[in-house]
């Protein structure tokens, strides 16, 4: 998994030892095409980093956006402490790093460079959403 993590921009600032530590601390999960990763209204979620494959976000069954390797999802529910208002499912076979909700804050505080890169990605998403709405 270290090799997969090292390829992602999100973790570009970390040393090999730090990547090893992350790979040993958090689990890799694999989802079949169509399998649900996040469920509307259910608590206890996690933050997911896509290692391989794609995921699709659905609201009331309608596909709204697609995520690719290196992208993060699940963060809104974890950071706000509220249950998700959308489903996320695997659009292809999907391989993710899963950081359980309770571990997200200590993880981001331990690796501020990852937090900064995540904020950049969130800003880009927000800009796209704003452009789309205007």
């Amino acid at each position, binding site marked *: 998994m270290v090799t997969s993590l090292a390829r992602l921009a999100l973790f570009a600032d970390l040393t090999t030892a730090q990547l090893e530590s992350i*790979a040993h601390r958090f*689990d890799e999960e694999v989802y079949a095409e169509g399998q649900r990763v996040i469920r509307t209204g259910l608590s206890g979620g996690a933050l997911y980093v896509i290692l391989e494959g794609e995921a699709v976000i659905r609201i009331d069954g309608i596909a709204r956006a697609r995520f690719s390797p290196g992208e993060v999802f699940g963060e809104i529910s974890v950071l706000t402490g509220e249950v998700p208002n959308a489903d996320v499912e695997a659009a292809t076979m999907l391989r993710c790093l899963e950081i359980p909700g309770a571990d997200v804050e200590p993880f981001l505080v331990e690796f501020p460079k990852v937090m900064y890169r995540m904020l950049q990605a969130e800003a880009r998403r927000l800009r796209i959403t704003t452009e789309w709405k205007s």
Partner: protein
Amino acid sequence: MEVVDRPFPPGDYDVVVVGSGPGGLQTSHTLSWLGVKHAMLSRDDTPGGMFRRFPIFERLISWTKPDAPVDRQSREYEWYDHNSLVGEEPEVRGLAPNFMDRTFDVPSRAEMEAALAAFVERAGVKVRYGCSWTATRREDDGRLVLATTDGEYRCRFAVFALGVTEPWTPPIPGAEHGTHYVQTKPPGAYRDKRVVIIGKRNSGFEIGHGLLPWARQLVLVSPRPVQLETLAHSPLRLRYLQPYEEYVRGGAGTFVVDGAIEQIERSNGDRRVVAEGTTRPGRLVFDADEVILATGFKTPLQDLRDVGVATVLNDRVPAQSPFFESISAPGIFFAGNVTQGSKGMRKHGAGPNSTSVNGFRYNARVLAEHLAERLGIARERATVEPGALVDYLLRELSCAPELWIQKNFLARVVSAGEEGLRDKGILPLEHFLDSGGPDAVAAAIEMDPRAVIHPTLYLRRGGRIEEHELPPHPVHAYGGPAYVREAVSILKPLTG
């Protein structure tokens, strides 16, 4: 000349089960009870699987309480007995304590092996021993063909209960200068030696604990810090924590450190382990007489990747559906501790107990029922009177061993239909939540991030799921008036 009548000659079967460890035995036993014709093959010559050899230091970590306040043949006893297989008939239940000499509170390896052999004998589980599965292919009609040393077996469904038993070593430069856990010698061989153990999970601590009285210096090293919060809630693992206790109290010569291994070097008979600190940056160098790689195991999948089986956890375990089918190769199922590849809901990041007998015995029963259903062997499901639903579910939440051992993974499901409420049995929670279907309820036991246990009801109404987490109770008794009131209100849409 003695003629040995071996069961299950090569040929066509609905299901073929491979492996005679506890996972394979439980699957075969329940399949037989359900009336599913199947073959059961094993390369070994006696039952028991990994317990014929492991754990190295001969003690299990899961316990059995011989003097529980319930009958050993009852379902409730399973809650106290984490090592017996689950007999579908009372006379084959709760066998493990019969073989414990009680010099320790957990069974020894030999006691566990004897209990499994007794289960085979008393439950009449038939196994074709000495038959090794050698290759796999799929026919044009989708059927699977398992080539074995005795000939070919054709089947619609194959269940591989192979264990996670093949040594796995990460790609560490110089790893060949160490020996894997499975090659660990008797403890006396490490007398007065400097030993570095790479790995701080179960097998690392098991070896560390075993060598602590013998080795001159003991170092356990791996990238991930010891997860004290997790261990504090896992009495199973505390059993091996003496090396850690020794380290934190400043005992001489024992170190438990966090470092990513860069390489293992060898010169003049000595080993040198070089690591980069993870929780505390800096170079770590340990000279050693012996390096033991307690880096875990992988499933001996042989050629299953070639027929499309996808894997997870560093390619060590096949990725599985809620019913333990390969997510990428239809018809190929798994049983035993390899079912850790079926992740379940992982609410708050917690996984099920599928790596140990207490959890995977239930997975095997769920699998057997699923296969029977796929083969059209319908099982009569009991009806539940609407007025009895609340008490029934609260009782299940209070003491169903399947729910308590496989938390947030298995659930009791009751479904509404034209003929009233039907008990659908124990099912994977993930399947219930994602499969759609008629209005229904699933009852599960769950744990929050602070390790507080909550009984939880999931109500399916018009295809939508509502989650109702009930409050915790200090002695886990969920039958009181407050619980009844809340459950009555939640279940109103089903009971009318």
